[in-house]
């Protein structure tokens, strides 16, 4: 038994020493000291020994076990240190290897523009309001002071619904302006509201023309509201869109639902001396607007002698195109992932 223990010790120490890695070492440990390892197997013979020998062999076995355990622990540390050293040496590590591809979600650039502007106006206390794309003639034209014989109502400008669509005439809204009237009727004055949405025109498509595109309408109605307030709202909006203050100017413009009507030009944000976008003029026409026509207020049930207001419009598709230098509006409705994936969020 003594010899056997001595042999186990020698062989065990040699096996521990020869272990190359943690796995091998663990296997060695199990083989030597495990529940069904060699030491346990050997000690099963203790019962057959003489009584006076037993304590001696027990002591010896403990010594062997301690020696092996110690050696195992030392080896473990040695291996861990070696592993750490190797890891830190970085051999074969290439930090430039790619990870798995991330899901490439994309948010449509027009919707991004809408989202950013909605956030901007929400922070200024505006309601975001929606209206239907299929709109009644009464809301799209009559309520907005557009005369019954106005050319905009004719079929070469407006897409009308079939005759049997309902009890009145319906069209695809030609602007987001009917939401002015809808929101006022529903929410009453005073009111601050913006309405983003899709609008439609009977129009042949090319790089700059689409029959379906997006606008955003803004409306403020309150007591004592005038042009200075409109100008302020427009300026702050442009600051939101372009991320900096732009010099602006108002010019006369004509739209039946405002009076007086304006066009707001901004200093071209893309050049210092004229470029393709501003056609060399250093000004770009960005936003129509004006004081809400009394007819519109009356249509919405608001007394124009008590309240006044301003309204402005913004081409969301145009803003998105300007922001990202998109030179052909037809990309917008293409559903082409090569286009969409360039706008991750």
């Amino acid at each position: 038994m003594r010899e056997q223990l001595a042999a186990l010790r020698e062989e065990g120490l040699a096996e521990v020493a020869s272990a190359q890695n943690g796995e091998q070492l663990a296997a060695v440990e199990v083989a030597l000291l495990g529940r069904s390892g060699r030491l346990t197997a050997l000690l099963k013979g203790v019962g057959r020994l003489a009584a006076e020998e037993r304590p001696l062999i027990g002591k010896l076995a403990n010594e062997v076990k301690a020696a092996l355990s110690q050696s195992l622990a030392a080896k473990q540390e040695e291996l861990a240190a070696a592993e750490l050293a190797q890891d830190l040496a970085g051999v074969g590590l290439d930090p430039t290897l790619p990870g798995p591809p991330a899901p490439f979600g994309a948010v449509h650039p027009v919707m991004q523009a809408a989202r950013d502007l909605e956030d901007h106006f929400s922070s200024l206390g505006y309601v975001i309001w929606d209206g239907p794309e299929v709109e009644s003639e009464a809301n799209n034209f009559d309520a907005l002071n557009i005369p019954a014989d106005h050319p905009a109502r004719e079929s070469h400008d407006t897409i009308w619904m079939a005759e049997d669509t309902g009890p009145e005439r319906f069209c695809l809204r030609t602007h987001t302006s009917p939401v002015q009237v809808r929101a006022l009727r529903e929410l009453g004055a005073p009111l601050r509201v913006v309405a983003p949405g899709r609008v439609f025109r009977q129009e042949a498509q090319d790089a700059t023309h689409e029959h379906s595109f997006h606008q955003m309408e803004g409306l403020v109605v309150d007591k004592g509201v005038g042009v200075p307030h409109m100008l302020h709202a427009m300026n702050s909006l442009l600051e939101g869109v372009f991320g900096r203050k732009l010099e602006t100017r108002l010019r006369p413009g004509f739209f039946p639902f405002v009076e007086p009507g304006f066009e707001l030009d901004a200093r071209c944000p893309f050049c210092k001396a004229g470029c393709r976008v501003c056609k060399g003029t250093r000004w770009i026409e960005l936003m129509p607007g004006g004081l809400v026509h009394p007819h519109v207020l009356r249509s919405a049930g608001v007394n124009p002698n008590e309240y006044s207001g301003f309204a402005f419009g913004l081409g969301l598709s145009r803003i998105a195109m300007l922001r990202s230098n998109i030179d052909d509006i037809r990309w917008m409705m293409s559903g082409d992932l090569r286009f969409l994936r360039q706008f991750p969020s």
Partner: protein
Amino acid sequence: MKISLRWLQEFVDLSDLTAEQVGELLSLHVAEVDEIETVGTAIQDVVVGEVVECGQHPDADKLSVTKVNYGAEEEVPVVCGAPNVRKGLKIAFAPVGSRLPGDFKIKKAKLRGQASWGMICSARELELSDEHDGIIELDSNASVGQSLLEHLDMSDHVFELDNKSLTHRPDLWGHYGFAREFATLRQQALKPNGVQQDWPAQQSNWTIVREDDDACPAYAALEIHLPSVPGESPAWVQQRLLALDQRPVSLLVDLSNLVMLELGQPTHAFDADRLQGNTITVRPAQSGERLTTLDEVERVLEPTDQVIADGGQAIALAGVMGGAATEVGDSTTRILLESAAFHAVGVRRTAQRLALRSEASARFEKSLDPGLAVQALHRYVELLQSIVPEAQVAQAPSLSGCFQAPERTIAFDPVAAAQLLGIAVGAKEQKRMLEDLGFVIDDSTSTWQVHVPSWRATKDVTSTVDLVEEVGRVSGYHRIEAAPLLAPIVVPAQESHRLLARRLLQRAVQTHGSGETQGYSFLADEWAERLGLAMTDFVRLGNPVQAGVTLMRHDPLPTLLEQAASNLREFPSGSLCEVAKGYHPSAEGPVESRYLGLVQWAPKETALEGPESLFGQLRTLTADLLQVAQLPQSQVTPLCAEDGDLPWAHPVHGLQWKRGDHLVATMARVHPALARELDFRKHQVACVLLDLSALAELDRPAVVFQAPSKFPGIKVDVALSLPQAVACADAEAALRKAGGKLLDSLLLFDLYQGEGLEEGHRSLAYRAVLRAPDRTLSDKEEQKFLDKATKAALELGGQVRG
């Protein structure tokens, strides 16, 4: 609309301004200038020359060999083919190196062996007129070497304005209206437009009958006699017309155009000798009536068109174009000059119907001031007599109708106007501006009574705010300083569906990698038919943008499928989604609903079932989105064919989520036969549709937090061998029941079919985690769960695998 600076200066002094400054005044106070054109740049290289020698070309009958002096050091040889070239003639000469219209560059050349260093030009070559029978013959006192532009005194600038920005201003369709604007802006006197003529005392020979006072509120006719056929207009008239893109025709026609460009009022000269009788009738056309217009096109008319007729037949299309048969020609010495007012919409409809937009119709459709009709007669006669002094007005004009816009007086408060505009402009200044524009003001009370002049009263200025605009734009909008709103903010109401759509879309894009797109709101009939949609159930367009695209979509899926198919070549797998509105017809009109649609595709080899499959991914996505929508406890059931309305879906491979009776979400693989037909030959494709309108209506309880248990859970793996027909959802429900309150989570981690299983069975392996909030679970409790699971498996016709 084109406006000549030179012409404006006849009525108002702008000599201290550059063309750019004039353009800016127009843009900032009147209407936007699109472009400023410098007249004559195309011929700026051409100079006055003199033919100093002229002889026959030795080898060509029709060519002459000349020497030209054009002010350079040496005279140059020039070969010329014009019949009228001769020695001593002053000519328009283009020397070597100069450019002519059409970017044509003059080079040294040889013509039949003779050197030719330059070109002697005809009027047509310089785009001065159509004349090309010979070269231009300049005055004999023209000074050699002077630029032709200077010699002809042609230099001018032309402002181009977008017609759309002038539609509301009937007074701005001629130069005189613009001159009035400048006079007001610059506080200058506006020179009168010519002098009033003294009409002969003799009454007109002509009787005018207007059948419809609305269609033609006023008609004037004036007979004029000429000593001889007048022929071409003098050069200044031609140049003036050419500068504004009008083709000179003959003096009598050119003067009509000149008056129109100046005043905005179209007139028309009939050859009086070609008219039958002495009565001019303005009446609706008869159905099918024919009239050949000046452009030699025979027009078939309808009763909605108005015609001018003489004793025999229609002689003009009212407000649009004269007739060919009564046109002034090379024998005309007696004209009847028409100057009238026509109904704007009627003229527009006729011009549109016949696709015949003329300069006249473009103006009449703006509701011109009827007062202009008489003024135009005066101006025409004045101009004609300045060129042909012997021209005689035969009788007084025949006038029928009311030559004045309706009287209109508007109440106006200058203090309120200044406040609304945010411009510090005093009452006195406002009064001056309005009066300069022609308004007549009674300011005896603090609220003024403002009388609108006839040229602004037809439709433009109707209420107080219109006057506010006049004060504003004359003052200059640059005087407005921005001011923030000071009113308190009312907490804004919100529309729940908008916020929901935004949250869901963000999740679909950011977590699930879908690409948000925008699709058209309309569908092609053919596409809807291919998808098997019921064609009777659509809101339809009356005048679609494209033939055959007549349907309003119900939801975004059809357009998403179309867009997905167009991406297949570049993207073997991908995902598109859209938040969109959909329409269904109803007796009250179209009913609008809002949807989130999503279409995802993957290569055909992708698994049909399980976590890796397209279907599995979309199921996870749908359930995840519904969770984001905080939809409490919805039931998911397989799609069944009886639910109909989904003709594009696989008959069984689909799911629907309901909340009570509300169907809130549907997802399904596209029917494989249809997928193939829609070009998904090598792909699987599946769709998800969430009804945002329905989801937004549901109450969404706030999440209630539950503290995690401090005690460890036990993982128990259990594999059920079950007949194929048993749905996974049923197996899962059975295990959930077996776990009861202790079941913390349940996950299917393996699906197996094949060896070692009973025929027709499959194995579903679940990992259950059991946990109690208040204690560590015992082995007994684990065993109890396993026993219940075993019993459940038996009930489902299978067993727990060992």
